[in-house]
């Protein structure tokens, strides 16, 4: 299994040290590519866009999803229905979901502008506006919490009910129950979703590719979109490989830091 993962990683590491226009063979240039990207204003901009996206997406994917899962954890009528409704948007295949969002927020015939118009507000550019495209792309993430939601829900179900009873007997309220039982018992899943959240939001591509193509005015130029442009539009394979390697290293460092810090807040019942 690792052959098919590690092989290409090393290959792109080698390419990153070359000047490789896709036609012709790579020419070794040492660290030239890495020096170049330090001065690349567009790359610095792409990193900034990606970091903003990642920060807000993590709040949604890790935080908001946890809140929703706790809300949907109890028993009661229609709880199955609400769970389904939360999960339902994640069931729509991306090739259709992207079309739906694009139309809903279309400047000319979208329902969003129609409703704004009805209540007397000015028409918005949405995905066609440099100021709104990134926040809107982040906002669409609210409907994409399905996977985090499900893993949280299964984690919540694995918490022994006795723990809650014990702490309630000791006089703890809802906040105490959350802080002293739910949070520590759920911490392995929180760690899981944090790592997954970082991996997927650093590598966000599809949604930007379908909805905005990085625009308008590069306002949604994510890191991977930038790599894609360099590799498949400008055919600078060496430079693109350097970008990809830097992306991989950044995610790896982030994950390593999170794992190191996790020793202080993740509680493993099964490893004492």
């Amino acid at each position, binding site marked *: 299994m690792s052959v098919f993962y590690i092989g*290409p990683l090393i290959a792109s590491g080698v390419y990153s040290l070359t000047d490789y226009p896709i036609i012709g063979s790579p020419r070794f240039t040492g660290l030239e590519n890495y020096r170049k990207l330090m001065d690349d204003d567009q790359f610095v901009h792409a990193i900034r866009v990606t970091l903003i996206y990642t920060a807000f997406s993590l709040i949604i994917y890790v935080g908001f999803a946890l809140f929703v899962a706790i*809300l949907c954890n109890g028993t009661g009528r229609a709880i199955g229905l609400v769970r389904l409704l939360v999960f339902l948007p994640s069931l729509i295949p991306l090739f259709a979901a992207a079309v739906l969002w694009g139309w809903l927020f279309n400047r000319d015939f979208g329902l969003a502008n129609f409703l704004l118009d009805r209540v007397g507000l000015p028409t918005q550019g949405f995905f066609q506006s440099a100021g709104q495209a990134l926040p809107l792309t982040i906002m669409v993430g609210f409907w994409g919490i399905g996977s985090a939601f499900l893993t949280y829900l299964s984690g919540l179900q694995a918490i022994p009910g*006795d723990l809650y009873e014990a702490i309630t007997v000791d006089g703890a309220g809802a906040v105490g129950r959350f802080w002293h039982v739910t949070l520590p018992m759920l911490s392995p899943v929180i760690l899981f979703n944090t790592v997954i959240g970082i991996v997927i939001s650093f590598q966000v591509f599809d949604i930007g590719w379908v909805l905005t193509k990085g625009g308008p005015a590069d306002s949604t130029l994510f890191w991977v979109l930038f790599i894609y442009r360099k590799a498949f539009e400008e055919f600078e394979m060496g430079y693109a490989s350097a970008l990809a390697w830097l992306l991989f290293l950044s995610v790896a460092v982030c994950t390593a830091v999170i794992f190191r810090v996790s020793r202080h807040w993740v509680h493993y019942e099964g490893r004492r």
Partner: protein
Amino acid sequence: MTVLVARRSRPSRPSRPSRSSVARAFALASLGVVMLLPVYYLVYLALSQPGQEFDFPPSVVPHPISWSNITDAPKGEIRPLWGYARNSVLYAGLATTGCLLTQSMAGFAFARLRFPGRNVLFGLTLTMLMMPFVATMIPRFLLFRQLGMIDSLWPLIIPWWFGGSPYGIFLMRQFFLSIPPEIDEAARVDGAGPWRTFWIILMPQATPVLVALGMLQFVYFWNDLLGPLIYAQSQRWKTLPQGILFNYQATFDPQWALFMMSVLWMVVPVALLFLVLQRRFKQGFLFSGLGGR
């Protein structure tokens, strides 16, 4: 099981709805409404008269409602969707089964077994998680071409019977680590080896997480477009996403209403599956036995 559940929820609650329970109901209701938004629009378009999807001004329900879309969409503009559906069921079903079996075993090994190089191997698994799919796509394609498996569903299924993605392994590891080790120890004292402990003691506990993982993987395969685009090349093996795009978007005049109705046909069975399976989001019986009751 029912008895245990009933016993757990017995602690007396005030019969009058408290303020917090009203707030919770309100939060749940508004959450449901907001989450429904894209789905509502999907259904709206799916039931529109073909050609009138974007009529202005839009109404709350499409006018007129074109019920015949429901039966028209699966017939396909060019080729019926049923053959594609069969391939999708095969791909998603077999790949998900492989995932659940092998990823839970690998997760168990990382969480419970002690073997040399465990941490290095787990680090490697996480590394794979961080690698963009595009990087592994090409060598994998070359491998399966050498094995002569191009133009079949095998390249999409086989990897998942060998561990597949790091995602599930990581999730299962996290889950097994959260189970108190006393359970294993009790099994070991009774003479069960790791294999028996895994199958008889731990797997029944894992029902909620297996349901979640199975659901997520199934949806991923069911909706996967890129994988089949690479490997399922002839009409005989193409899956639903390919079939829908082929019938309704690649044509000269895209039929958006029928396109969305086909997508709805894809979503509804999985939604029903979820509705049935979400009842399984209940903890295994062993947990309720901990704590000396």
